């Protein structure tokens, strides 16, 4: 099998070579931008199917952890790697024919590099380095349209993101000072048991830093402007790659390093606030992309809430739900945002024209986000309610039920307008059409028969919950 470090090495190598490739042939960068996610996906899937339950350790620099940096790969990280690269492949494929400027492809690859690095690394400072790569490329991508909203969003994101990254770094520094190591497994093993106040402070700083990319309240003010102003493919990238890699890191850090009720309670409160604010804001938006942006924020809040419920109720289903929500959101939002390309005259919520195919694709994606029966989203959303009922948290059950209705209301408003709107003929991009149909079929098929998704999610869940094996494999020497 291929060494997984080649994922990072190849992404870097080709990102550096991009200007020269562009000189050789104008089309070459877009082909490379398609081939690399496909390669990553191949590596991810083969490892996911063949790997044993023990995490795989890849050394760098020739030194064993904690002296050198290592990649630590288990089914949980592979699950996110596959998810992110499926979406990346989809985005690259659907824009293969259109994008000419090699800088877009370069930034896209570097963004993917940051996301993959965060997911694969087992080292805390290394995760900060990849977080930086991933955030800086995101700032540039957010500004790429050079319009009022895009620039406003990008500047807000730049300021908030830099503050967030600094806090994350400060947290890493404090943990290094306490434990004398930067390796996640070593830190986790020395933080088991009693924690001093400084560990809590470090954890708060790191979480605060990650709130920016996971679009949690109060650090998500940049998100609506970015979603509204950026190109559609970049909005898809924000909602399906950037926030997914960040939420991976948040889950990993909270559960592996700290695993403390205080953090779970904080995440529950922040998740609820984010979800409530986002859904009611989405309800009053006039601009379609802004509405979808608020809906993305809401979904992220819900996923974090579901994850944190695991810490309070210790139902593994809660965490399972969080993973399902993440998958559903990544796939359906990537679909919705890239499909907007086919609906050029549909900028407002209540007016506009669209053609039947793009209306259908929007509807499938929207139904899955809402959790309508016979879509993948249904299983995710019904599980959230089920857990709340089983653990007898009724007030939250009713609150979330109401918010689901609010969500359904504003999506159905758009769908009903789509039904009534004038039909226009838009020149459909064939590659985009094919990839949209594949995603739509996936969502519907998994809605009827969700066994595959459940098996894969379960495998990831088992790897995640057995953190004792993860820690002992890495700290036990090689």
């Amino acid at each position, binding site marked *: 099998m291929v060494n997984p470090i080649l994922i990072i090495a190849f992404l870097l190598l080709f990102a550096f*070579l991009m200007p020269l490739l562009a000189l050789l042939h104008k089309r070459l960068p877009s082909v490379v931008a398609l081939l690399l996610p496909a390669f990553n996906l191949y590596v991810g899937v083969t490892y996911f199917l063949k790997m044993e339950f023990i995490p795989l350790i890849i050394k760098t620099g020739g030194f064993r952890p904690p002296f050198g*940096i290592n990649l630590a790969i288990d089914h949980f990280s592979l699950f996110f790697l596959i998810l992110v690269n499926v979406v990346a492949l989809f985005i690259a494929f659907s824009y293969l024919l259109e994008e000419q400027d090699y800088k877009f492809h370069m930034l896209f690859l570097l963004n993917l590099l940051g996301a993959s690095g965060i997911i694969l690394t087992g080292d805390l400072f290394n995760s900060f380095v990849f977080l*930086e790569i991933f955030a800086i490329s995101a700032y540039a991508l957010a500004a790429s349209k050079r319009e009022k909203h895009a620039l406003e969003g990008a500047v807000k994101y730049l300021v908030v993101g830099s503050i967030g990254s600094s806090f994350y770094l400060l947290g890493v520094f404090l943990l290094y000072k306490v434990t004398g190591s930067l390796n996640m497994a070593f830190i986790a093993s020395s933080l088991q048991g009693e924690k001093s106040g400084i560990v809590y402070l470090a954890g708060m700083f790191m979480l605060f830093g990650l709130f920016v990319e996971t679009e949690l309240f109060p650090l998500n003010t940049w998100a609506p402007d970015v979603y509204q102003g950026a190109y559609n493919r970049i909005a898809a990238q924000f909602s399906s790659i950037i926030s997914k890699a960040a939420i991976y890191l948040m889950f990993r850090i909270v559960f592996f390093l700290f695993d403390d009720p205080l953090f779970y309670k904080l995440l529950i409160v922040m998740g609820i606030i984010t979800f409530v604010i986002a859904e009611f804001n989405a309800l009053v938006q006039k601009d379609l992309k802004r509405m979808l942006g608020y809906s993305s924020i809401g979904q992220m809040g819900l996923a974090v809430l579901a994850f944190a419920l695991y810490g309070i109720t210790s139902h593994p289903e809660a965490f399972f739900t969080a993973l399902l929500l993440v998958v559903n959101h990544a796939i359906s939002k990537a679909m919705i945002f890239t499909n907007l390309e086919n609906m050029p005259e549909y900028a407002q919520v209540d007016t506009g024209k669209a053609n039947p195919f793009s209306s259908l694709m929007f509807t499938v994606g929207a139904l899955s986000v809402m959790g309508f029966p016979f879509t993948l989203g249904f299983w995710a959303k019904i599980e959230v309610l089920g857990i709340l009922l089983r653990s007898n948290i009724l007030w939250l059950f009713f609150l979330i039920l109401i918010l689901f209705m609010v969500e359904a209301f504003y999506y159905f408003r758009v769908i009903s307008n789509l039904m009534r709107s004038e039909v226009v003929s838009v020149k459909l991009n064939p590659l985009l059409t094919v990839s949209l149909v594949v995603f739509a079929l996936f969502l519907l098929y998994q809605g009827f028969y969700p066994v595959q998704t459940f098996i894969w999610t379960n495998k990831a869940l088992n790897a995640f919950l057995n953190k004792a094996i993860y820690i002992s494999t890495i700290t036990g020497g090689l």
Partner: protein
Amino acid sequence: MIRKFLYFLILLAFSFFIYAVISAYFPFGENTLTGVAKYYVDNGVKDLGGINIITSIVTVYRGFDTLGEVTVLFLSVTALAFTLLGFKVESRVLPDLTLIMETGGRYLAPLIMLLGAYIFLHGHLTPGGGFPGGVNIATAFLLLLVTQRSYKLRKIHLTVTEALAGSLYVIVGLVGLYYVRSFLGNFLQTGKPGYIVSAGIIPIIYLLIGFKVGSEMTAALKNLKEGGDEH
């Protein structure tokens, strides 16, 4: 005015809080090394043959991070060029250059470049290394851009240097992966500590970082002077 004052107060309170926490938990002046830091100081010279321990940590023990940091710099410069694209900067009129400035710049720049090269070539022996050496070289180009009226820096040269230095860095890592089964692992003999040819791959990596950082920073300066260029 009152708002600025409030922001300043909040910032001050926060800085004080951080300072208080850190100094309460980790008092200054206790120089006992623990954890990985102790290992690096004890075994650095033996493992890698570089007498500058910091260099060994930066390029080999945590070489993967350094590769990431080089990428961050590359990315920032690309992002700068990308955001400036389409914003035409009107060519600024340079202030009146005197003969002394023009001649001085012309003779000083090669010397500064030489110093930069010295810094990154001796990275494993003396303080310094690829990053400061590269920045030094970029300052020489800044001097040329500011003092020489007819000086033109060709974009293609910078692009090729950037791309080659960056990709060779990754290739050095891949060679390590092939020979010692570890990305960025040291596949050369460590040699006699203290000599210029020693410390395995560290001088090679610093050479590449020097070229990479020098060309990146120069490209950033060029972009800021002339605006983003299309091609």
